[in-house]
């Protein structure tokens, strides 16, 4: 409907829609680890995410437009995460909160996904282990700025981004594999000479 209007009118409508959307983000708290505690603290009265209009946390993805992935995601949880992401209606955004969600963090093991951006799109990354509530609030502000700049009424900004934006997946060579140490007293890790 909006596409049949003159361009100037569409631009104004885009701005209006962006202004409405950015000040009323409904987060989907995908909290799997200790970052979830900081996420709760951000929602509580002291830090009060309601000051930025993102206090309406809903535990149904159908009602949300901002997914906050707080904590490490293991390979058994990733299909769940992808399914929940697909269940969220457009327009939707994603904040990767903390080192584990962004890169796997210290959990460089067989079961932990090394950053959710390898498999779902991410808009804002929050560093920290876990991040302070102020950092999460700043990421919400940054996301609001991003929505203000790039958002369109019809969601064209998503359709334009067809390329995969995450890191390139490089299969690890056999020499990069880490195995258990031969001597527990002298080392905690040892490069595998046999592989």
């Amino acid at each position, binding site marked *: 409907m909006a596409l049949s209007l003159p361009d100037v009118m569409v631009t104004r409508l885009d701005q209006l829609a962006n202004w409405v959307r950015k000040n009323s983000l409904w987060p989907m708290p995908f909290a799997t680890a200790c970052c979830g505690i900081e996420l709760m603290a951000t929602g509580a009265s002291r830090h009060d995410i309601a000051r930025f209009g993102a206090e309406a946390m809903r535990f149904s993805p159908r009602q949300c437009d901002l997914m906050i992935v707080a904590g490490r995601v293991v390979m058994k949880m990733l299909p769940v995460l992808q399914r929940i992401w697909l269940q969220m209606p457009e327009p939707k955004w994603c904040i990767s909160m903390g080192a584990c969600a962004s890169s796997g963090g210290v959990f460089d093991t067989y079961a932990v996904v090394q950053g959710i951006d390898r498999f779902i799109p991410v808009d804002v990354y929050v560093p920290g282990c876990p991040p302070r509530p102020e950092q999460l609030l700043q990421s919400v502000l940054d996301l609001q700025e991003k929505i203000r700049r790039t958002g369109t009424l019809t969601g064209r900004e998503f359709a334009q981004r067809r390329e995969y*934006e995450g890191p390139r997946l490089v299969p690890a060579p056999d020499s990069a594999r880490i195995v258990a140490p031969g001597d527990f007293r002298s080392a905690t890790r040892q490069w595998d000479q046999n592989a």
Partner: protein
Amino acid sequence: MSYETILCTLRERLGPENVTASQFRDNYRLVVPRHLVYEALACLKERDGFDMLIDLTAVDYLHYPNARDRFGLVYCLLNTATGQRLIVKTFLNEPELTVPSVWPLWKGADWLEREVYDMFGIVFEGHPDLRRILLPEAFTAFPLRKDYPLRGRGERHNFPILTRAES
């Protein structure tokens, strides 16, 4: 009943060469061979009153200094009437990684044996439902074995990629 009595009755039952005992402070340990472990545990439960299986776990001794066997299977028992604790251990080697399930003795062994199977690939014969408990069903390796690489064999990268346009 003292630990010496328990050890004596067990040696009578299984043969003295089949039970090795050791002690460190208040930690009493028995090592029995694989084919006698069920008999030993049944005897300990029925006769000596070790009615609670505290833990059942396994150890991989690959690359371990001076180790002769590949896997060690550890049963931690508790007598809830007297408070006595006992650790029973048995050793397994490939390719015979099967051991009788102790599920008929302690129902709590159900998930513990499933976890040991999941992580080490040790098969418990007679277990009612020996499936993976922690890892996905499609997982093929046994990741707590020491010859399994810490970063896996690419299982964590094996997912479809959702892009912005299609989601």
